[in-house]
């Protein structure tokens, strides 16, 4: 079925096609349309699922975990403050090994209050054990949500997955995309068969006290799940392409990288803008390609090592910042390349709190980087505004009060 919809509604339609049975959720801008659409689909009898209107995101994630533990397919959606409010439960979901899927509509964190796009919310959940994928188009939203269940429910993975899509750029814009029907998806994604569950026929205790003598192994098995996920993500993407004819990459997506001297690395919708930048830089004679990092966890270690060898330099775009160090993708990329190559890696911080990421700015910054005119880390679109001037004036008055 080909439809014209918002990114958020595409999440809901994909969730329906995936045969999700329980959806606990709490509204937050810009995620609201996802859960409104799901509530509508259920009310109209177009989707068979239990919707739990919880009273907070912390509870949304708690109910997501416990519903999944009864042996059903469960999904939720959130954004920004909602995601970080869930932080404890994100660890819980991964630790108790439930294969749930959640859409996160990437939004900045306040204060100052800001409902627009950046990746600070997702990046700050890096170490929770969740698989994290960043998508860059409406079609990719649909296809990734469906693939997510196949990956998480695989018995060699059994870790939750967060499908990240950019606030407004993807969540609220309308595009047309293909949505496979529930019947079609069934052929790709078999019904969920839990490896363990809360079952009165086999009473088992889940999440009990684990002493130091046994604890490390439970964490190592989560590590194995993430490691195993790499191959399973690749197979899920391949299988999807075979059945539905669409490919968005697996752990990464390559764009004009083959002969490129320079590589740009980026995640999310900004990476789609990078594609435009690569085309126009190529037209100007620059040898450049784009490596779109889809999966932030598991991190595409091999792909980055393989594809970043023998280039002149790398330019890593981050729509987030790890305070006291650098952009998050930048530090991960440098980490996996350490000791394997000496090429310069530079970091562009841009697009925070919904500031528009334009291909013109990317092109300008890229050329500067190649000329050696950029520092290791550059806040590419930061500049003082009239508002900041007014604030400085107020600060001056506070100083006067102190005198």
């Amino acid at each position, binding site marked *: 079925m080909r439809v014209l919809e918002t990114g958020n509604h595409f999440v809901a339609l994909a969730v329906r096609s995936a045969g999700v049975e329980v959806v606990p959720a709490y509204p937050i801008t810009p995620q609201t349309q996802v859960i409104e659409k799901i509530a509508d689909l259920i009310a109209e009898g177009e989707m068979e699922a*239990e919707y739990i209107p919880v009273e907070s995101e912390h509870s949304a994630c708690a109910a997501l*975990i416990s519903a999944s533990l009864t*042996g*059903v397919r469960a999904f939720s959606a959130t954004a920004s403050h909602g995601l970080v409010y869930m932080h404890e439960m994100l660890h819980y979901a991964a630790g108790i090994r439930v294969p749930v899927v959640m859409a996160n509509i990437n939004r900045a964190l306040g204060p100052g209050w800001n409902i627009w796009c950046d990746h600070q919310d997702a990046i700050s959940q890096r170490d929770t054990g969740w698989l994290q994928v960043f998508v860059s188009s409406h079609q990719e939203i649909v296809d990734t949500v469906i693939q997510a269940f196949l990956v998480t429910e695989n018995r060699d993975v059994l870790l939750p997955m967060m499908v990240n899509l950019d606030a407004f750029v993807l969540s609220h814009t309308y595009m047309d995309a293909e949505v496979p029907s529930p019947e079609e998806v069934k052929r790709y994604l078999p019904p969920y068969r839990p490896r363990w*569950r809360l079952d009165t026929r086999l009473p*088992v205790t889940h999440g009990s006290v*684990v*002493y130091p003598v046994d604890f490390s192994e439970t964490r190592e098995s989560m590590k194995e799940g993430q490691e195993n996920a790499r191959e399973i993500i690749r197979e899920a993407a391949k299988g999807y392409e075979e059945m539905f004819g669409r490919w968005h990459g697996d752990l990464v997506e390559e764009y004009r990288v083959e002969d490129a001297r320079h590589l740009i690395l980026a995640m999310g919708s900004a990476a789609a803008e990078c594609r435009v930048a690569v085309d126009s830089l190529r037209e100007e004679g620059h040898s450049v390609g784009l490596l779109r990092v889809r999966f932030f966890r598991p991190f595409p270690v091999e792909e980055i090592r393989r594809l970043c060898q023998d280039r002149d330099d790398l330019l890593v775009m981050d729509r987030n910042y790890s305070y006291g160090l650098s952009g998050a993708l930048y530090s991960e990329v440098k980490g996996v390349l350490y000791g394997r190559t000496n090429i310069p890696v530079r970091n562009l911080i841009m697009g925070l709190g919904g500031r528009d990421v334009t291909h013109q700015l990317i092109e300008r910054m890229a050329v500067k980087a190649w000329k050696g005119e950029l520092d290791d880390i550059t806040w590419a679109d930061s500049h003082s505004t009239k508002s900041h001037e007014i604030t400085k004036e107020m600060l001056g008055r506070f100083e006067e009060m102190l005198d």
Partner: protein
Amino acid sequence: MVSFKSLPEEELFLAGSTACQGCPASLALRIAFKALGSNTILLVVASCTSVLQGSYPHSAINLPLMNAAFATGGATASGVVAGIKALVKRGELEEEPTVLMWAGDGGTYDIGIQALSGAAERETDFIYVCYNNEMYSNTGTQRSGATPIGAWTTTTPGGKVQHRKDIAQIMIAHRIPYVATASLAYPLDFYQKMLKAREIRGTKYIELLAPCPPGWKFPSSKMIEVSRMAVQCGMWLLYEHEDGENRFTGATKRMIEGKVKKKPVVDYLEVQGRFKQVLASPEGKEAERMLEEDVSESIRRLHGWVPEYI
């Protein structure tokens, strides 16, 4: 009428528990399991019960059990109940299991009140049992919203200066179909309340006073005795709330009806080390008076007035 002899013989609380001696939560679980039977899913929020069930890979509890995070009691139950509904729709479950959420007073009065309130407002079909030991016993006896005025805890070294909350009243305000209190000194009363809760659709809230020997500082052999004294002095009132009506039960009913005399609160305070300091202080009499007033206020709230003989 239920008698001890008529209780089911099947034990779902097995050997191997790692509870303290005289632990009220363990005994309460044993009675609750007898009332609910094996077609029950047990959910436990972080509390002494997370620890006393035994440690990986052993468990003393022969029910499907999920340990949940501290603040999540109500929400965790909502998720399980929704999952059960989905399984019924699929035709995979013939008989719906009872969902029992088991939490302490910290997980109920304080960190978990939001999730509990949400679950009750959503009319989640489950039984919520709060075993109230009036402090954070598991972390080493810190004050909670359930700690009564005057009580020593490690975070109220001079005795608590605020009143405890009345959370059962908060639950009644949610207009849920069943709210009850219970005491281990009256196990059949607790058992019958659990049986009743099992048969009612919607959110059921049962709160059990759980005198904690190491936390309250009394010998573990006196746990039942202290439980009984709490009821006899009115510091713990036994009642049910159903169909908009409050109904006193058991020993409390007899006390309200004037058939047995209410005992002074101070008798109950004196058997516990946690009130020793405040009773010996210049404010001792005032604390005693405030706790007696607390009893009167609780009776007034449930009954409308306090009979003159109390």
